[in-house]
């Protein structure tokens, strides 16, 4: 069987960063397997700008951002295979992939990084009611049709869900001559970034209806003809008499992203509430030598942070291959009051000088302390003015503060400032 030190599954932003960083940390025998015909992942279709402000201090489009990393991958001589779909991974770290040239190939790896990205929730997943007709597609699919293949998915559009991809597509489709009638959001707040509401909706007078969802879709002809929205109460029940009808040919769904983890799931890696795998401070999953980063670990909104996380996984994998990542402890990190999830879920090594805790809040909140506690001991207290679910929070804590804890547990919680 072919043997490799490090196999990276997925050549998007996370995978490329992991490969580059592992190489910088002394691992030479690296292979990236990518199912698409280009490197870069989802960024290939994100042609708008706003990427790279942290990484490069300039505002790049998705393709420009990805090409900077693809260039480095090539310059460093890191091997990658395109059109190569990973079919299976075993606990013994045997990766099976297939492509037209090589056929089906097994590779035994010392370490594996999962960087497989995420997928969009679909109509079935949200139990959309009404006629089953064509013209209901996810915002990301419409983005691919338009920005990669050059055609519009529809002419009169209603968008369900205020995630960033939906907002970005509202503007894109308007610019290409479609009429976007409205964006409807189930929650009482938007899930997208403020700037995208300003520049993608307000600029084009596209209304955003909060606490409203699709009551039914009508499309007897086989294509969407009408979408009926209605307001929902605080228990998410439709309120009779609040219906709004929109004649349209397309319903775009931007109702959430889910980490793509079917292969990790098959390995019985321990999973978290993010729908991604649980990881330790090296971004290693519960399967020794198997790492996860980027959108397949938890869904990110800013690619710069994906790149950073990819690097972390690349370093983690390099440490593992070099035999440095001995487990010295087992501290569990858990979300407390107001916090949805925290990454990493475990602290096991002492290899990092600082540990960056990443989390999302459950609902928008102002003027809070973020408390890191172990038992009754307060490890760190951080003031935050505004926290919203659509923005990932990152707080760095020095390793010295994480030593000699009273219990093997850290809880991250919110406390309102009086």
């Amino acid at each position, binding site marked *: 069987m072919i043997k490799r030190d490090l196999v990276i599954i997925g050549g998007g932003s996370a995978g490329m960063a992991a490969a580059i960083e592992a190489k910088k940390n002394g691992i030479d025998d690296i292979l990236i397997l990518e199912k698409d015909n280009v490197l870069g992942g989802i960024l290939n279709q994100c*042609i*708008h*700008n*706003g990427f790279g*402000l942290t990484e490069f201090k300039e*505002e790049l*489009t998705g*393709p*420009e951002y990805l*090409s900077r990393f693809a260039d480095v991958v090539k310059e460093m001589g890191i091997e990658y295979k395109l059109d190569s779909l990973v079919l299976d991974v075993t606990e013994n770290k045997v990766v099976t992939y297939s492509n037209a040239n090589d056929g089906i190939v097994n590779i035994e790896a010392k370490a594996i990084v999962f960087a497989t990205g995420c997928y969009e929730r679909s109509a079935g997943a949200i139990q959309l009611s009404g006629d089953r007709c064509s013209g209901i597609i996810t915002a990301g699919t419409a983005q691919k049709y*338009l*920005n*990669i*293949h*050059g055609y519009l998915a529809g002419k009169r559009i209603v968008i369900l869900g205020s995630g960033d991809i939906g907002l970005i597509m509202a503007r*894109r489709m308007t*610019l*290409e001559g479609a009429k976007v009638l409205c964006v409807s959001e189930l929650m009482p707040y938007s899930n997208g*970034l*403020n*700037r995208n*509401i*300003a*520049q993608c909706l307000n*600029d084009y007078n596209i209304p955003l209806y909060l606490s409203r969802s699709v009551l039914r879709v009508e499309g007897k002809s086989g294509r969407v003809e009408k979408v009926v929205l209605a307001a929902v109460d605080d228990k998410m029940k439709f309120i009779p008499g609040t219906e709004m009808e929109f004649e349209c040919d397309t319903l775009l769904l931007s109702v959430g992203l889910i980490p793509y983890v079917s292969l990790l799931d098959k390995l019985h890696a321990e999973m978290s509430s993010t729908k991604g795998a649980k990881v330790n401070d090296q971004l290693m999953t519960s399967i020794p030598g198997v790492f996860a980063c980027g959108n397949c670990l938890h869904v990110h*909104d*800013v690619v710069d942070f994906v790149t950073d996380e990819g690097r972390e996984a690349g370093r983690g994998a390099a440490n593992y291959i070099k035999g440095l990542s001995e487990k010295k402890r087992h501290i569990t990190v858990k979300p407390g009051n107001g916090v949805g999830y925290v990454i990493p879920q475990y602290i096991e090594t002492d290899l990092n000088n600082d540990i960056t805790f990443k989390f999302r809040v459950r609902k928008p909140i102002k003027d809070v302390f973020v408390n890191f506690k172990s038992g009754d001991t307060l490890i760190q207290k951080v003031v935050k003015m505004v926290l919203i679910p659509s*923005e990932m929070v990152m707080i760095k804590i020095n390793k010295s503060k994480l030593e000699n804890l009273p219990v093997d547990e850290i809880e991250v919680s919110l406390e309102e400032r009086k």
Partner: protein
Amino acid sequence: MKELTCIVCPRGCRLTIDDELNVTGNSCPRGAQYAKDELTNPKRMITSFMRVKNRENCVVSVKTSTSIPKGKIFDVMEEINKVGVDAPTHIGDIAISNVLGLGADIVITKNIK
């Protein structure tokens, strides 16, 4: 007094600006400049694509090299849609220079072999 959302970076600070163009709420100087521009001469970057003439079903992404007046967005889109380019394309190639005399070029943002 006017309230607006800064669109310069993903933080999206909520800004207020008064009639004397004093800005509050910004976390950095770029926010202040944005609010002033927004009241006097609002501008936007445009990103879109152009047809690649010598490839089947192929488009290449483009952007304006600098922001253009908000009121000209659809005029610029029309210019972008009028023409196509030939592959290979390179990031940074200029597809249309000084579009509509607005001082911005239409620049290619994707390499296509």
